[in-house]
């Protein structure tokens, strides 16, 4: 347990010592602002909703996470270590392989959670201080953040897994981006696909699973789904790390 924390702390510090963390944080906050306040889209522009709600934010957040934040945060975690050889020094310290995987996983997840925490500025600025645009119903906000956290946990798991399968950060970035893009946006075509196939798609789609959270509904099936994906991905990452022994 102690080792997991030490490894996670080192990784997190490395993120904040490099420009990646700031580019990701700053860039995504900016993009989120543009998306929520300017771009007219599925849910309508924030101002045109005429309601005290942050649903637009929760609509765009996973979108932004999938194609930018999570690929950028997880790309380095295993791939860079393998590519530069630092993994050999880390693994030959008295640590378990699982310590390494979990440490790196929690570091990446923490980074994403920092971003999530930063977005709290929107509901706070709009509805508490300095502006009071109305009485915000905090229930959906809490469930929305819960959904985002679960979504991030699973997506970071996918990123970790893919990062552990390659030695190139660029490969890791694009593989994660593609996987999350497909997993998320496949949900948008559910209504176009009839019957069993549509059901299957909506079963695996991150979007269908996430949507209820954004609207204030905590769906236990979705919770279990996201957690299972996380565990599965971490197991694959662990196996992949272990496979170096037998290659």
């Amino acid at each position, binding site marked *: 347990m102690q080792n997991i924390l030490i490894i996670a702390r*080192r990784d997190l510090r*490395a993120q904040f*010592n490099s420009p990646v963390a700031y580019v990701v944080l700053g860039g995504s906050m900016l993009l989120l602002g543009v998306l929520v306040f300017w771009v007219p889209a599925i849910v309508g522009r924030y101002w045109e909703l005429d309601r005290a709600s942050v649903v637009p934010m929760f609509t765009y957040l996973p979108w932004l996470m999938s194609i930018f934040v999570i690929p950028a945060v997880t790309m380095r975690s295993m791939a860079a270590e393998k590519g530069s050889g630092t993994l*050999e*020094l880390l693994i030959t310290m008295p640590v378990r392989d699982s310590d390494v995987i979990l440490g790196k996983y929690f570091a990446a997840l923490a980074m994403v959670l920092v971003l999530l925490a930063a977005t709290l500025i929107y509901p706070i600025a709009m509805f508490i201080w300095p502006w009071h645009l109305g009485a915000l119903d905090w229930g959906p906000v809490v469930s929305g953040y819960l959904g985002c956290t679960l979504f991030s946990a699973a997506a970071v798991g996918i990123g970790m897994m893919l990062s552990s399968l390659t030695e190139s950060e660029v490969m890791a970035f694009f593989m994660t981006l593609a996987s999350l893009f497909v997993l998320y946006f496949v949900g948008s075509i559910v209504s176009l696909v009839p019957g069993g196939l549509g059901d299957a798609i909506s079963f695996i789609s991150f979007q269908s699973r996430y949507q209820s959270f954004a609207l204030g509904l905590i769906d236990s099936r979705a919770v279990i789904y996201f957690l299972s994906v996380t565990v599965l991905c971490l197991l694959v990452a662990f196996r992949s790390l272990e496979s170096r022994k*037998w*290659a």
Partner: protein
Amino acid sequence: MSNDVMIYANDLSKTFGSFRALDKINFEVKRGEIVGFLGPNGAGKSTTMRILTCFISPTDGSARVNGHDVFDEPLKVRQSLGYLPQRAPLYLEMSVFEYLKFAADLRHLDESTFKTRARSVVEVCGLAQVLGKEIRHLSHGYRQRVGLAQALIHDPPILVLDEPTSDLDPNEKTEFLDYLKQIGKERTVMLSTHNLAEVEASCARAIIVSRGRIVADGPLDEIRAKSGRVRYVVSIQESPATGAYRGRGAPPKKAEVEEVLGKVGGVKKVGDLPTDERAHVFELVSEQGVDLRPDVFQAVVDKGWVLLELHRDAQTLEDVFRSLTIGDERRNRRLPPLGGSAQADDEDEDDDDDDDTRAAGSQVDAVIAAKEDRT
């Protein structure tokens, strides 16, 4: 197994696909020994070290480090050794101090132990000047020192260093070997290198590996003596190139010279060396500790022949290394093995895994031949 055996490898084998990187390696390293692990590139040095540090697992065989099995107790094995991988792969964005702290944390040193240990390794490795610098800004020599420092931070009884001097300049190398002698006094050190001068400077014992097998293991003197025999080269004039023949009577025949040299006291073997028509050149091998030069000279004088050359070659460790590992290099370049029965036997044994290499080799030959035809 006695208590003093710190590293023990028993029939270690490792195959990567069809490539046999290690083939039943056996050795022991005792407490307090500094052992040089020698071999050409690709001979299996790093593979062995990675198995000992539990980074990879052997395909077959077993190894124990400080009494702990690498399969069953990898954490205990890693606790008792400090490891510096090839090219010291460190986290470049960390400062030297942060890195040492990180290594100490992972090894669960408490704050006060860390302070004392850090002070000592910083002094031994000469890192005081660069403690606050980011590792990315350090020269390779300094990075190697940081690598050594992290391997020493927990005061391990065993040090495994993989080519620790490869990136150093000559001055740094000398300094490094001095450190090594300092820190090696009460530790077991295993270091790999292909620089023989380093081994001669710092190790008392060497293990030479070639193509995944141990070809020599023992004290340096013994290895040198093993195949490092002394040879004498004698060349006798056969016919003068220009001018008159200065010897007594007619120039000797080859068989005659061979017979006379064979009778000199202390000669163990007379070998014929290739030459032109102007001289007979022979190689003599003496019995241990006998100097043949006076007797050979006297025999030649007695016969009235003209002695063109007489010299003694003492084989250096380098020669021994070359003669023990030469097959390696030829195989890497896909050349056929040199003549000699030992080599031929060797080839027969691993015919199975050589087939691919040979097929590829002959393809290369065919391509080269085709190119030559065209030009």
